[in-house]
């Protein structure tokens, strides 16, 4: 028993730190979002959020943007991950893997900045189109939905590729080969054999990309500005520019609840997928 008391002593500093500096501030936030004295009825903040067009739009834009980024990153990452898994040369494979990991380690501001150079008035795309004579004056590409989409896709695709690589490496080529030798077409063996076996990788990657995309701040702030408001940029605007604490708190809670919901939904989707692969 003495032994065990000493164990708790080892845990104490970390628990105290997280409680005082993380849990308590969060609880303050949660309680503030439900009821603030003198600010109308319980849950008024949530009502106001969905009653206003600006914030409602930001919410649904974040959701649809997150969904689209997830879907497109799946479509491109799956073949890319398959190609990486099939690379025979060990050194080439580790080089390609490094190139995939590198963006994750790089400052997001620096990474997003590149898109300003590509999409700006005097940027790569406008200059190319002008010199080809396809357009007469520079088009506005920045501060559009497309700009935010491209930035988010580049930011989060590595997560999808890496989860798919680890899923694909656990699936032996023999399964697909067996399906093929039994007469299934390439597409059929992919759809009925390989895809169900790698559904977990898709779910993990999808969760990381989706939640990442709807909570990211840097990309929508730089590439979307105040024209393309997302949940995160609206949250910061309310907290720092208009100093509307109640609204900022509500947005934060909605963001948190949405990511929790997504985590749960995608997890159960993965379970359904796996049980179907067994039948």
């Amino acid at each position, binding site marked *: 028993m003495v032994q065990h008391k000493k164990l708790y002593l080892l845990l104490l*500093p970390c628990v105290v730190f997280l409680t005082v500096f993380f849990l308590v501030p969060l609880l303050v936030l949660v309680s503030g979002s439900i009821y603030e004295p003198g600010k109308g009825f319980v849950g008024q903040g949530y009502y106001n959020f969905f009653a206003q067009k600006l914030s409602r739009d930001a919410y649904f834009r974040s959701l649809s943007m997150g969904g689209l980024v997830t879907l497109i990153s799946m479509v*491109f990452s799956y073949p890319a991950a398959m190609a990486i898994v099939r690379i025979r040369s060990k050194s080439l494979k580790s080089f390609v893997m490094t190139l995939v990991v590198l963006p994750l380690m790089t*400052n997001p*501001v620096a*990474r997003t900045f590149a898109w300003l150079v590509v999409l700006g008035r005097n940027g790569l795309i406008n200059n190319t189109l002008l010199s080809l004579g396809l357009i007469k004056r520079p088009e506005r590409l920045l501060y559009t939905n497309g700009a935010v989409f491209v930035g988010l896709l580049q930011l989060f695709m590595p997560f999808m590729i890496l989860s798919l690589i680890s899923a694909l490496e656990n699936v032996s080529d023999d399964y697909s080969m067996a399906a093929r030798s039994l007469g299934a077409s390439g597409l059929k063996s992919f759809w009925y054999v390989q895809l169900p076996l790698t559904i977990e990788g898709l779910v993990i990657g999808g969760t990381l990309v989706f939640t990442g995309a709807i909570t990211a701040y840097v990309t929508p702030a730089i590439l979307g500005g105040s024209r393309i408001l997302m949940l995160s940029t609206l949250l910061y605007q309310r907290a720092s520019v208009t100093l509307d604490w109640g609204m900022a708190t509500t947005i934060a809670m909605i963001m948190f609840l949405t990511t929790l919901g997504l985590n749960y939904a995608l997890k159960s989707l993965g379970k359904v997928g796996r049980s179907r692969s067994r039948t």
Partner: protein
Amino acid sequence: MKKNWWLSIVLIIVMLFLIGPFLIIFISAFGNEASLRFPPRGFTLDWFKKVLTMPMFLDSLKLSLRLGIFSSLIAMLLGLPVAYVTSRYDFRGKRFIELSTTLPVIIPQMVAGLALLRTFVMLNLFSIEMTLLIGHTAIVLPYVVRNVISTLVNFPPSIEEAAVSLGASRVRSFFIVVLPNITTGLISAFILTFITSFNNVPISLFLTGPGVSTLPIVMMTYMEYYFNPSIAALATILIAMTVGIVAISQKLLGVSRMM
């Protein structure tokens, strides 16, 4: 087996999409025009000189380095005992410990940033730098715990038991037997936490104050007002730093450890 050439084509497109922007930053950092354009018309090194002498960037760089190093060290001191105890023992409340140490990665950082702002900046308990340090430490703690646990799981407890049965105390056997064997794990955890803190925006965004700001935040603010290659030069320096860190850690630990 049939060669799937179209898989390779998709891979090349994806890699161009992921890495291409880095080349664009690199090229535009040497452009000689006051307003950024691509492709640039002339060549100059002035932006690097300018960036490396601007006090605004230098001060925030120093702050970011300090935060990265100290938040990683504090998180290590707090997280190592937790990782050790949870990987070696079963005890009442273990689930709670596991949950609370993963909480900072589950909660969106923007949410955590706002929570910390509302509680600590409003109460005015600590200096701005201290609040930043607290926020960064909380954010990197989960990475320490997770990485160190996965290292400890691969180090058989029997070796430690041997030391104890030969007469070493628990504490002594930890420092003499366990610690030297998990140094690579600790280094990889440190690299990961340093980078996480150094690149952080959402927490710093809420906690920075007048005159005290981290490098990524200063870069974002600067970009709102100026559209010239100095940010490209700064970004080039940061990317070079990242490439260096990734290369060194790969030599030391291998790619798989970096995730």
